[in-house]
């Protein structure tokens, strides 16, 4: 398992260092996937129960991961659709599918901590490293630059030992030399280039992915620049605006498909921008306060801020994967509860109702697909000239994208309002750390919900598109999963924007309370 995971990261890292052409890189990745390297992975799967669990839940993982951490779809588009394929066509390609999945599934959860901190706007690099190292089952402190390379080698050595116990098949050399280079170069880029370097790795990976999957190109474009999240999204929206403007003459309603446009229509972009402003302002304040302190005071505060940061690192998503179908009220209830735990007067109704609308739509679709077709035709004012069946899957797709955009926009609005209210201050019944924990739980709940929703939608798509050709249906399914995955990333990034807000809230509460 580890071997595969590290090996893959290794490739990414190495190529980022070289900054070389993409084609050779791609060929480098592919053999790792299809070659003998996952033999040890398979072996250790029987030893490691969690690996099995993750291999089962691969689609969920892919939805939660940041877009750039989605290599499976890059290698083969159909990899994105395992839930559908697994349930619909058992046996079909099962051998070729199962094997890489286990590897990828693990890679996903492993890579997440690194990747999400790479692209999350305010994640700290130190955290990323420590997550990685913790994952490697060693407990190292936050190392100094010079320590990193030595300690990391040590860490790799330890894995080496472990790995040998678990899977004697793994050739110690081939695998572990890669591990240590991988980690070493991680360390190096972290220190020298910090976030930029990590982001670059992500982008480089995206290039490779995009090679094989045209559907990915858009996301690649999305992530391509060094910019804030709202900039990225705004650019995407503008691109779509441009497109839809040029398409207006022929197809008026095509714009219903554009996630970015819809996200903006639901004011997601504005809320994100506003949240970024609050975040930036808070960050500046925190920095200036830290600069004004010294000695013990500074150390205590730093320690507290560190705790806050820890509360902000998202827990593993992969734990209770298969408890789906939690019922409609549960999400709403959970969300309301979490919001109330924040002790801010923001409301989750909008988000909850957006979510419920989506589920009601799905429900009616499942009951009476035929009627639904008519209804959604009305709703989305699609062209009626096309064959009924085709209109239908496009409608589902359009509605899915719309729902995802709306839920994401509402989630970001919720975060923005929470930030405003936290900054608004007043009496604090809960500590900043408690709020952080609640917010990170909320992030997980939201991402899970998006993932569940996208699964529902793709199920609808498969049902409605039984008679469709794969090259018609699959891109739609891929797009839904892709946007769900993007949505989850945006929410996670927005969540990270809350950290400085809570930091300043912690500091202010601290300075206020002795006086009171």
């Amino acid at each position, binding site marked *: 398992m580890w071997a595969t995971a590290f090996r893959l990261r290794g490739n990414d890292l190495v190529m980022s260092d070289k900054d070389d052409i993409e084609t050779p890189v791609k060929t480098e990745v592919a053999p790792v996937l299809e070659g003998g390297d996952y033999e040890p992975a398979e072996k250790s799967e029987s030893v490691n129960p969690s690996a099995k669990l993750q291999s089962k839940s691969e689609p969920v993982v892919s939805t939660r991961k940041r877009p750039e951490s989605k290599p499976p779809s890059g290698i083969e588009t159909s990899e994105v659709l395992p839930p559908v394929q697994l349930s619909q066509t058992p046996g079909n390609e099962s051998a070729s599918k199962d094997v890489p999945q286990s590897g990828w599934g693990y890679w996903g959860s492993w890579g997440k901590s690194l990747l999400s901190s790479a692209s999350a706007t305010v994640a700290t690099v130190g955290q990323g490293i420590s997550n990685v190292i913790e994952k490697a089952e060693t407990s190292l402190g936050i190392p100094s630059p010079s320590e990193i390379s030595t300690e990391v080698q040590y860490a790799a050595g330890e894995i080496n030992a472990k790995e040998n116990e678990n899977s004697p098949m793994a050739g110690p050399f081939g695998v572990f030399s890669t591990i240590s280079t991988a980690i070493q170069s991680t360390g190096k880029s972290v220190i020298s280039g910090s976030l930029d370097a990590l982001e670059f790795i992500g982008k480089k990976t995206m290039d490779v992915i995009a090679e094989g999957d*045209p559907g990915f*190109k*858009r996301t690649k474009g999305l992530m391509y620049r060094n910019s804030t999240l709202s900039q990225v999204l705004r650019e995407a929206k503008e691109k779509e605006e441009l*497109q839809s403007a*040029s398409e*207006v003459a022929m197809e008026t309603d095509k714009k219903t498909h*554009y996630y970015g446009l819809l996200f903006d229509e639901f004011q997601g972009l504005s809320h994100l921008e506003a949240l970024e*402003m609050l975040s930036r302002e808070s960050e500046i304040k925190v920095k200036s306060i830290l600069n004004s302190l010294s000695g013990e005071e500074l150390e205590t505060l730093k320690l507290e801020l560190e705790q806050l940061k820890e509360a902000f690192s998202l827990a593993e998503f992969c734990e209770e994967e298969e408890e789906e179908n939690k019922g409609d009220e549960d999400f709403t209830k959970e969300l309301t509860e979490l919001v109330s735990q924040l002790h801010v007067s923001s409301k989750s109704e909008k988000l909850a109702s957006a979510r419920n609308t989506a589920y009601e739509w799905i429900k009616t679709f499942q009951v009476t697909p035929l009627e639904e077709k008519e209804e959604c035709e009305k709703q989305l004012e699609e062209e009626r000239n096309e064959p009924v069946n085709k209109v239908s899957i496009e409608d589902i797709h*359009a509605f899915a994208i719309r729902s995802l955009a709306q839920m994401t926009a509402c989630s970001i609005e919720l975060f923005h309002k929470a930030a405003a209210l936290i900054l608004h201050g007043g009496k604090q019944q809960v500590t900043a750390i408690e709020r952080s924990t609640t917010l990170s739980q909320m992030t997980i709940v939201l991402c899970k919900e998006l993932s569940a929703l996208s699964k529902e939608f793709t199920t609808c798509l498969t049902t409605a598109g039984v008679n469709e050709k794969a090259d018609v249906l699959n891109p739609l399914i891929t797009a839904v999963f892709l946007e769900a995955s993007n949505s989850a990333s945006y929410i996670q990034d927005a969540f990270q924007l809350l950290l400085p807000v809570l930091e300043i809230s912690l500091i202010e509460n601290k300075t206020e309370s002795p006086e009171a």
Partner: protein
Amino acid sequence: MAYAYLFKYIIIGDTGVGKSCLLLQFTDKRFQPVHDLTIGVEFGARMITIDGKQIKLQIWDTAGQESFRSITRSYYRGAAGALLVYDITRRDTFNHLTTWLEDARQHSNSNMVIMLIGNKSDLESRREVKKEEGEAFAREHGLIFMETSAKTASNVEEAFINTAKEIYEKIQEGVFDINNEANGIKIGPQHAATNATHTGNQGGQQAGGGCC
């Protein structure tokens, strides 16, 4: 859909002067007497036409409550226009204008066009601030001035549109650097369409995986 420019506006002023009502009247053409207090900032958008060009107004409606003041200041950045609103039936909201103006000038770019608005002009019987006073204040501080009623929609369109005209003129005069987004102005797809057709086509292909 396509627009030549996008202008960012902020609406500021004391709580209860009708900022959110003005926005709602402008974007939805309706009046809602009872409102939740605005938390932080709310948003609205509408397309207008000036000089034959489509302009998208993106409006940030800020919270008026004193306790939100430090937060709302964060939102001023990058606004091209501001509507500074007071209530003609409440003298204190007029008296606070100087503070608001200082705030706005301090936290946004110096070229920002500010429109002073005396709202609730339908409540003539309860008027506490004369129109002349508003005019005088505006003249003194170099603002545009209008009295409006969010309830009857009187002058609401004009307030938003005249502000946009002023910004547009400043762009023509070269006062605003439209390539600097900190000025609250962005060039829209319509404007860029000629040199971006190529990109547009590419975009179409890219999205093909998603929608075709």
